[in-house]
């Protein structure tokens, strides 16, 4: 079904995805600092990582021709490690929530009490 055929990115692709990655990193930094719910902060952290990977992947695709495999290998490593870091982070958040009854850091206020169905 698939062979090792060349899979060249389009000429404009690196610029487009690099700018997209830069925007995502900025959004993620804003989210990490501004959001207070810890699980949303973990999501923001992941958005930052993913934006950096897109930026790095665009660097790999620069210059036409075959993409550089070294950044791609590092990105694969990064994706897997980001998952493991997220797993550790969300387990910490859940443990904190069970201990304190809220998923916010101690210095940043209290979580409002839960309504009976607040599913959003």
């Amino acid at each position, binding site marked *: 079904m698939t062979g090792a055929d060349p899979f060249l990115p389009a000429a404009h692709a690196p610029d487009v995805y690099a700018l997209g990655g830069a925007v995502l990193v900025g959004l993620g930094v804003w989210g990490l600092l501004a959001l207070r719910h810890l699980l949303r902060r973990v999501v923001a952290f992941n958005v930052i990582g993913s934006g950096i990977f897109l930026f790095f992947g665009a660097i790999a695709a620069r210059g036409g021709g075959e993409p550089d495999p070294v950044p791609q290998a590092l990105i694969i490593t990064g994706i897997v490690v980001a998952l493991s870091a997220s797993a550790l982070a969300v387990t910490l958040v859940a443990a904190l929530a069970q201990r304190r009854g809220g998923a916010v850091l101690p210095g940043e206020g209290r979580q409002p009490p839960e309504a009976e169905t607040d599913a*959003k």
Partner: protein
Amino acid sequence: MTGWLGAWLLLCAAGVLVTLGAALWRVWRGPARADRMMAAQLVGTGGVAVLMLLAPAQGWAALDVALVLAILAALAAVGFVKASTPDGAGDPEEADAPHDPPLDPPLDLATDSARSDRDVA
């Protein structure tokens, strides 16, 4: 693949992406959790479609990604269903699982948005 056929395939892929934009709007609006999850599943299925359209134009290796996406996209739905059971590990089809309240009074489209305050997980 160059030329008109390649351009047409890419154009079709762009069209599918537009429908995925509509799915993202549904994720934003909800109002129920199931609405959001079904829209996310649509993004997964649409992604498989985009990859299959890209494969002849860009490279057949995209079909591998489409295969992996097709197999694993439903995993999030399973996780959602599990997480919404009372102990986080159950099955909504089990005999003692809580069920959605029946639609009584009958569904009135003009006031359908009022259902959101009876929304259950």
